[in-house]
């Protein structure tokens, strides 16, 4: 009699092969977060203290104004008088000076950038006009660890990706197999049901490893986003996050019969977390009243703990509360889905 292949290995390999042979899935897991990181990293890169743009209206006295602003280090742009409103609206200049005695500053109160530019322009023009400062303060810019937007963003994108691939990777595979009666065919064999569920988790771990390496590696290489905490702590958090969302995916997919039904459920589960759990902007922007709710969401726990390790370089002990939240979500949904699971 010939040798029997290991069923757990075969199931895991099958699942993994099905995944990598699906170009769309590979795109969403690997390429999408990289593109996101790239786009947001470029859009929100910190410009440092680069030259401030100042607009000057072309009319009598404009040339002198432009000269003194240039000397003070501003990048000067000249606008026709009837172009001022649109220049401000389009962001071609944060502030526009209309020459005169006294000059008029046109700027947008609602934009911090615009307000700062107004102050800088005023400062420069007052000095040029002969104002004497009583003293010159010493400026000492802070170089805080991981303080750029991209540093803050990357752990959130990683968390979001772990959520998406955990839910989809597990949920979609199950419902697809159920809709095609493949689950029914499998339970007609002596296959151990636990092997099937475990194979989903294991193949998920394989893709997760690649996913984390690709996202963190890309952010490090191209944006210099460094992991300040322990790598093993990052690995533990990613694994726990994946297990937690894998359990949730199992629960969401435990009864759904069609891809349409499970897609709706997935989005219902994920949408609040995309918004609330601090992927693109801090969840502290939401009212205090709903903060306790936000903090028990699994994605909030994952994102917060990832940021503590990656950005702040905190110890693993500091993220234990988040670890507890994720373990609870994963454990409870796994137990519930075992009770609810529909094999046929």
């Amino acid at each position, binding site marked *: 009699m010939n040798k029997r292949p290991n069923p757990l290995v075969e199931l895991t390999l099958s699942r993994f092969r099905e995944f990598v*042979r699906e170009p769309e899935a590979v795109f969403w897991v690997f390429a999408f977060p990289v593109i996101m990181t790239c786009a947001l990293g470029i859009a929100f890169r910190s410009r440092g203290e680069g030259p401030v743009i100042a607009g000057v209206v072309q009319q009598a006295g404009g040339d002198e104004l432009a000269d003194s602003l240039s000397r003070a280090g501003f990048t000067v742009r000249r606008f026709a008088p009837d172009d001022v409103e649109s220049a401000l609206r389009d962001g071609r200049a944060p502030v526009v000076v209309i020459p005169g005695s006294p000059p008029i500053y046109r700027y947008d109160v609602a934009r911090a950038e615009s307000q700062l530019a107004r102050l800088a322009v005023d400062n420069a023009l007052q000095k040029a006009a002969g104002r004497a400062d009583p003293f010159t303060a010493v400026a000492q810019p802070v170089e805080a660890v991981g303080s750029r937007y991209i540093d803050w963003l990357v752990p959130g994108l990683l968390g979001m990706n772990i959520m998406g691939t955990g839910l989809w990777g597990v949920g979609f595979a199950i419902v697809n197999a159920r809709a*095609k009666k493949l689950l029914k065919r499998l339970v007609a*064999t002596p296959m151990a049901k636990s092997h099937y569920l475990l194979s989903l988790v294991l193949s998920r771990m394989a893709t997760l490893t690649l996913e984390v390496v690709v996202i963190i590696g890309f952010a490090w290489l191209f944006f210099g986003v460094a992991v300040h905490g322990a790598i093993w702590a990052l690995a533990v958090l990613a694994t726990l996050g994946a297990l937690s969302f894998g359990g949730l995916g199992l629960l969401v997919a435990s009864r759904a019969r069609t891809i349409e039904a499970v897609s709706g459920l997935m989005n219902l589960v994920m949408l609040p977390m995309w918004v609330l759990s601090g992927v693109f902007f801090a969840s502290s922007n939401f009212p205090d009243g709903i903060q306790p709710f936000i903090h028990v969401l699994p994605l909030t726990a994952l994102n917060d703990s990832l940021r503590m390790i990656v950005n702040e370089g905190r110890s693993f002990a500091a993220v234990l509360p988040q670890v507890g939240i994720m373990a609870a979500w994963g454990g409870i949904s796994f137990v519930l889905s075992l009770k609810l699971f529909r094999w046929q």
Partner: protein
Amino acid sequence: MNGLDLKVLRGECFGLLGPNGAGKTTTIEILEGLLAADAGEVEVLGQRWDRDGTALRARLGIQLQETQLAEKLTVAETLRMFRSFYPQGPSVDQLLETVELGSKRDAWVKNLSGGQKQRLSVACALAGEPELLFLDEPTTGLDPQSRRQLWEVLERFGANGGTILITTHYMDEAHELCDRVGIMDQGKLIALGTPRELVASLGAEHVVEFAMAEGSSIDDALFGALPGVRDVRRDAAHLHLSTSELHLTVPALLDLLRQRDARLSQLGTHSATLEDVFVTLTGRQLRDE
């Protein structure tokens, strides 16, 4: 399903024959332990699902009607996975050879033809070297050549002592493959026996099928009185006379038509089949055509 009492013997090929909705799939899935029976007892290979489920699974090969195997796995990968579920059985290469899919070894499942997919499905069922093979309409929708290829696989399995329980709504398939046949209709078993016995039970080995041109009407009783005729049946367009004496019935029929000035628009005869058995028992065709 209603009071189905059925025994399948070891080593035989048993066919469950019946129209769609007759309860064939329900019956076979109860036997496969995939559905629970509301009442009654099921014993498979001397074991019962409630007591020896796991042990029993390893002794059976099952092919389900609607299973779609993973599209982006190769034939060999699929077989290797199914083989891994069973404690014993042939190698992947042996399975490929059995179902003649060696040349498709590394092809993705989605690129197989319908017949090749069904052979792969049967190969998956054979992966555990089963004593008993359940097949639910394995040839539905296949072209004649693919059906024949599949029959050969099943005949080889039977020749090696395996037991087969197959459902089908093709009479010729049941006739060709099965040692015994049970005919089902509306959840009941309405006939049971070897194909030969069932056909013989009609008491008439031949069927004369004819149609008359419009405007001709002759009472059925007159046809029934023709020599050799056992049964007269009418459907939308045709009359069917079951007869044991074809050589007497046909001339007498032609005489009768001539006397009544009726014109034939169609005439044919065939040896009685399981289809005729079904029609005689239920008054309906086996397939809606």
